[in-house]
């Protein structure tokens, strides 16, 4: 792959719902081996931005480039095939299947085995092992045989993360991975994401509202506000900027910037 | 040695034509009873009637007929109600080499292109209806439009009607076909009105319609009289003729109305039916009875033998009495011929239905019923 391109780039990406401009001409490039946090108030357009990149929504104007290739007009599945993967903010799983089967299906998609009609699925041991390996990593392995509908909310969030990891895409988009996860689980997920960071060919996009998570993971923060990109830079510097302090953290400028 | 003779009545006991089926069965049983003087025996052989339901489904009908011939060893089968089922059943009779007496399914092709030599029919066919109506309505100078269901039955009927009109001096000026499930006949009526509006002389709209959803009342409501258009149609069951009450003076031809044929068999049928069920016999009761009487007549001729070849020999050209009058199985296609009755509707406040009054009896010889099986 040519390395002069950023892994992912959006140019003037815009979407309008009726008259409401939810994402407003966002241009931004994401480099290999970096983790970028996207912050902004509720309704700033973060999830919508993700939806535009991964193809769930079609942009009103602007484009998305992956390794320099224009993705406009490609379906969600085609984009996933090319290396864009995401986890969802509101949990989105296969509820009547087991935990293991959820992850196995991802591994199978990754291995491009879906159209195989005449072999028996359970004979593809490597896919099952891959799934179990990921489940062990997120500490869900003992619930592998439960159906997803019976999982507690926090466990479903973990499975959501596990499925993105099993997909091994080039661009990983996490939408509030730790929301609803209990304090003891958060470090597990953070470690996992940090582990992915070490793999330098990938690029991670992370939407989070927890400042400590952002501080420990992000190399860069971009700020969306009412759909527009309003700040971009080093974490410390962006967090200290007045717009983040006021509009996002809700602090008067003189207040201390600790915890969240 | 006296043996039981099994007669299988294979017909659509359940389904949309349940009412017809009931009449048909009652008629069959009364026919057997009348013809055997109540003994239900022919030459000492007992007649046993078994019933099979086709559920109005061709596949079920086939299976039921095969079962009747094969498992129950029936000598003769009677039925069914619907033409589609009948057509599916015909080859089964051939396969088993046993007689199927079709009653009252009407499609021409039963004794036409799909006929085989094991098939006899006591019911009238579409051609008979069409020809009788053509004879009844066809006068020089008369202009006729037809309205029929848009499938094989309706189209065949109109074709036969058109054929029969030739030489009567009447002219068929317009054919309209409407889907069987049409709910609103305004458009059809309008097309017909537009076609007949300019014509001179007597103008008829002849309706060929089987089953429910009959358009006559709805067209009548559009006031065709103002354009000088008269409605005509064939006979029907009493329940359906309630609609005729609104159509006094309507003309047509039918094969049976309980008050029309004057003969001892019909007198017996009407009295007995009134006595047992409190109602007069209906359209298909007479048909069923004709079938029952045909069977007994044939068995009497063979001396109780149920051998198929004997039966065929006995039945070809056989003449016998029925409530509809004298009937005869034509040799060529085994279609039974009978008189038809040209009627005109009269309203009798004591009866719920419009009463067909006999205008003229159309004898077998008055009508040239085409043979289709060659």
């Amino acid at each position, binding site marked *: 792959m040519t390395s002069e391109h950023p892994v992912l780039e959006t140019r003037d990406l815009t979407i309008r719902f009726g008259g409401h401009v939810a994402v407003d001409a966002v241009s931004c490039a994401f480099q290999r081996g970096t983790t970028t946090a996207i912050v902004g108030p509720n309704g700033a357009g973060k999830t919508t931005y993700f939806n535009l990149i991964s193809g769930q929504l079609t942009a009103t104007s602007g484009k998305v480039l992956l390794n320099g290739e224009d993705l406009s007009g490609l379906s*969600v*599945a*085609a984009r*996933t*095939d090319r290396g864009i*993967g*995401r986890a*969802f903010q509101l949990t*989105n*799983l*296969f*509820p*009547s*299947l087991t935990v293991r*089967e959820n992850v196995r*299906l991802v591994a*199978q*998609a990754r291995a491009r*085995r*879906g*159209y*195989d*009609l*005449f*072999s*028996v*699925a*359970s*004979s*593809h041991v490597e896919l099952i092992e891959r799934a179990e390996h990921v489940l062990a990593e997120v500490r869900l392995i003992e619930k592998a045989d439960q159906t997803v509908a019976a999982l507690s909310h926090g466990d479903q969030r973990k499975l959501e993360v596990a*499925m993105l990891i099993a*997909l091994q895409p080039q661009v990983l988009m996490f939408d509030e991975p730790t929301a609803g996860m209990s304090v003891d689980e958060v470090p597990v997920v953070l470690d996992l994401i940090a582990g992915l960071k070490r793999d330098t060919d990938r690029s991670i996009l992370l939407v989070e509202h927890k400042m400590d998570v952002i501080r420990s993971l992000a190399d860069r923060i971009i700020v969306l506000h009412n759909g527009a990109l309003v700040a971009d830079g080093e974490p410390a510097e962006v967090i200290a900027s007045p717009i983040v302090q006021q509009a996002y953290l809700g602090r008067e400028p003189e207040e201390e910037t600790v915890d969240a | 040695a006296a043996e039981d003779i099994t007669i299988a009545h294979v017909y659509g*006991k*359940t389904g949309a034509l*349940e009412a017809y089926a009931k009449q048909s069965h009652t008629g069959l049983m009364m026919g057997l009873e009348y013809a055997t003087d109540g003994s239900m025996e022919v030459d000492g052989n007992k007649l046993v009637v078994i019933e099979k*339901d086709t559920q*109005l*489904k*061709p*596949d079920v009908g*086939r*299976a039921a007929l*095969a*079962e009747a011939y*094969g*498992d129950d060893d029936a000598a003769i089968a009677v039925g069914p109600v619907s*033409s*589609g089922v009948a*057509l*599916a059943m*015909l*080859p089964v009779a051939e*396969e088993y080499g046993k007689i199927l007496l079709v009653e009252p399914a009407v499609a021409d*092709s039963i004794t036409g292109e*799909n006929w085989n030599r094991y098939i006899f029919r006591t019911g009238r066919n579409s051609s008979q209806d069409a020809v009788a109506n053509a004879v009844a309505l066809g006068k020089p100078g008369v202009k006729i439009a037809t309205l029929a269901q848009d*499938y*094989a*039955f309706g*189209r065949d009927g109109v074709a036969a009607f058109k054929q029969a009109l030739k030489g009567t001096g009447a002219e068929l000026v317009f054919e309209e076909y409407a*889907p069987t499930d049409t709910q609103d006949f305004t458009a059809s009526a309008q097309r017909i009105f537009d076609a007949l509006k300019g014509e001179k002389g007597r103008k008829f709209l002849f309706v060929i319609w089987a089953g429910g959803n009959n358009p006559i009342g709805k067209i009548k409501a559009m006031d065709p009289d103002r354009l000088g258009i008269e409605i005509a149609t064939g006979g029907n069951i009493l329940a359906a003729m309630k609609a005729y009450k609104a159509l006094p003076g309507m003309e047509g031809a039918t094969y049976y109305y309980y008050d029309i044929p004057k003969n001892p068999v019909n007198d017996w049928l009407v009295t007995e039916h009134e006595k047992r069920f409190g109602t007069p016999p209906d359209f298909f009761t007479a048909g069923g009875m004709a079938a029952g009487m045909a069977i007994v007549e044939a068995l009497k001729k063979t001396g109780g033998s149920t051998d198929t070849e004997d039966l065929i020999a006995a039945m070809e050209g056989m003449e016998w009495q029925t409530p509809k009058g004298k009937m005869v199985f034509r040799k060529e296609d085994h279609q039974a011929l009978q008189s038809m009755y040209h009627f005109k509707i009269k309203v009798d406040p004591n009866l719920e239905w419009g009463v067909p009054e006999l205008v003229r009896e159309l004898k077998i010889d008055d009508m040239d019923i085409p043979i289709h099986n060659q």
Partner: protein
Amino acid sequence: MLVRIISGDMPRSRLLSLIVLVIGFSLLFAPFLFPGIKSLDTAARIAIFIVLVASYDLLLGYTGIVSFAHTMFYGIGAYGTALALDAWGPSFWAMGLGTLLGALVAAVLALLIGLFSLRVRAIFFAMVTLAIASAFAVLVSQMSAFTGGEDGLTYRIPRELTPAFRLMTDKILDVSINGRLLAYYLIFFCALVLFLVLLRIVNSPFGTTLKAVRDNSFRAEAIGYRVIWYRTGATVLSAVVAALAGSLLAIWLRYTGPATTLSMEIMINILLMVVIGGMGTMYGAVVGATIFILAQTYLQDLMGIASKATDGIPLLSELIAPERWLLWLGVLFILSVYFFPTGIVGRLRGEVK
């Protein structure tokens, strides 16, 4: 070995294994176990319906697509074979070619329907297929010169498959070994093979993906499965199998018409068989089809007996008169959905709702 044949998909319940075995065994030896024309006919019908219902389960149970066009494909298969036999005479090659053409037409039509209309919402897809199926039925009845219209087609099949053809003069176990028996076994083994193929398909990676598509198509798309292709693929496969089942029916009945293949009633019956049997289980098709066909065939007879027994009682005898068999079939519809919310197979496997 056996496990390989059934693609490792075990019935997962002792009783269910037993039931499936009994059904299989009974069908295999039906001509000898239950002699008689009606019972052989019932057995053949069960075999054909197992395939038809299983193919619908692929669509409904595994892919979550509600289609009312399944009988249309069934009809296309039947008409393919019927028209070929009608036009080219009763030969095996006409039969085979007609079957093949029917399946092909079904596949192409399913592909078109799938690509054009699987994008709409599930309930609208159901209605669109209902519309297409009824338009197709209208077409068939309109083109009566070609299809026989409402009356259908009656035709001959190769002589080797008719009762007139005798394989041996002696009877075995009091059953004459004739072409009809041959026809039965042709149908039985074709049905068996088709069923096993379906079983393999649902246990393949493709089949497991279908379940994901059913559960959450949005997410399936987001992990890289092109949902529309999977749905269309399932539609085409199930249409082809349905068409083949239709061909089997055409061969068995020697008659094909709208009432035996295209009617809405058959569609609803298929639906009921899938649901009673248990959706998304394949074995459900076996159990559901068998029970339903048996009920449909013998309920009326049973009621005849019952109504004789209760002759004197006024309302009751009216209600259980054989003419009212549909009433009880309706009651059966309701009760079976009540008592088997997860189907008989689900119940036997101890699943809860």
